[in-house]
């Protein structure tokens, strides 16, 4: 079978997406109940001093990272099921709906903010905001970076 990869927008107009990548996972506190949709994860700040240094503050933790231009862009593809005229089968198409050229990468371990005297002034507002609404407190868990897992992709999936 053949699946066409198409694009509704064209290269010039294709909307740009982005990625914020952190080494680890963000989890909600065990006491948190309810849906995580709309929940705030943290605050991304671009620092004053250097051109492309970013911090990401999540709960008590602060990450330091930088903007990375991808060597090869990533295309965001969406599987689209199209009903064909004959009732027999559905036709699948892949549509390119976005392109990612840069990401903000945080590859270091986080720094706890409590003891930090470092740059406290400008992270203070994110920090305080999180304190003011405890239900939105998120816990950042870190695990060792695993090697890349390679998985085969099959047409059936």
């Amino acid at each position, binding site marked *: 079978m053949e699946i066409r*990869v198409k694009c509704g927008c064209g290269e010039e107009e294709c*909307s740009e997406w982005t990625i914020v*990548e952190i080494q680890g996972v963000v989890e909600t506190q065990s006491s948190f109940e309810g849906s995580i949709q709309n929940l705030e994860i943290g*605050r991304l700040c671009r620092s004053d001093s250097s051109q492309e240094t970013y911090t*990401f503050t999540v709960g008590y933790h602060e990450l330091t990272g930088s903007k990375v231009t991808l060597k090869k862009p990533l295309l965001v593809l969406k599987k689209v099921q199209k009903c064909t005229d004959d009732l027999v089968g559905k036709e699948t198409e892949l549509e390119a709906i976005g392109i990612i050229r840069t990401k903000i990468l945080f590859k270091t371990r986080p720094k706890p903010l409590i003891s930090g005297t470092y740059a406290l002034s400008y992270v203070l507002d994110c920090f305080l905001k999180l304190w003011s609404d405890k239900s939105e407190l998120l816990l950042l868990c870190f695990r060792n970076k695993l090697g890349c897992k390679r998985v085969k992709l099959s047409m059936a999936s």
Partner: protein
Amino acid sequence: MEESGRNGGAQAVINLGIGSSVPISYHPCFGPHEDLLLLEADDNLVSDIFNGRVTLRGLPDEDVVLCTKSKTYAIKFVGNSNSMFLIPPSICPGFLQDAKDDDKVSVLKTAPGSMELVEISPRLDKLKQLLSENPYGAGEVEAMMMDDDFDHQRDVALYTWSDLVNTIQASDEELRSGLQSLSAIEIDGYWRVIDDDYLDMILRILLHNCVLKDWSFDDLDEVEVVSALVADEFPSKLASHCLRVFGSKVNEDDKWKLEPRLVCLHFARQILREEKMRLESFMEEWKKKIPEGMQGRFEMLEGEVLTEKIGIETRVYTFSVRSLPSTPAERFEVLFKHRPKWEWKDLEPYLRDLHVPRLSMEGLLLKYTRRAQPRADAEPVFSAR
């Protein structure tokens, strides 16, 4: 909408000003979104995709490949244990949020990894197998001539171009050149290979006509050839096909030149078939079959026949590169099963057509063979690794 769109979503992250900050939240539609995939693509491929020139091909039980107009790629999913927060633009069809939230930066999905492409050789072995199931031969031509209403609803499996595209994992260009190397032809919308005996019949009548009408092998007029063959009750399409199989075009006009190597090779195969013959009797019979004006040389049979020495006798038999698998690992396996040790001059014709992206012939030999050289001045011998 447009104005506020610029203030949120991915744009807000990409264009974040020095000393500014922005909160990042989960999107109202945050979820696994397994229908969203990330594909790493170089600039050429990006432009191919935006121009609608890319397809995925494969049967449900196969690993899917991605094809551009001329190349085939395997798709590898590369997992990433980092959390990749995927952030769409603020206005993203299909993933709507409240208009008042347009200035927010929201994470739609945590991507588990992305897909990478690795250029591979097209998987054409199945093509040969499919087309060889029902070669087009004399029987079918007769049936068509006898019965004008010859029913096209045959019981046998035949394949149109679109059937092949849906079955074979190769790009359009690679599929076309695969069909060409099988000398396949499109008849009534189906791609067919021609039965060897039937092709032999057409060729012999063609050669016969050359003698009869005093045509030169190097200067055949397509129109004349076809009309002579049609007079002998061959379909005109097959008459031109015969020129394509055994000849090459001279200039741009409809003039053709028969290629001695192709013609001689054909007769060698006709003689040998499945048999092993003494070299002397083969050469004798071969020379008899070759039309006058052409010279049969043993080098013409490279990659098609092999010789073996048994005692003082040398025997020759068919061993065609065209019957071998096209993937290197399988190719070498068959070769070394057939013969454990190969000299380079024998081996090379069976490797010539192997094109592996990013791997040279040296690399192939290093990877799949062991090279032994008994003395410094001796020919190297290749065996299985």
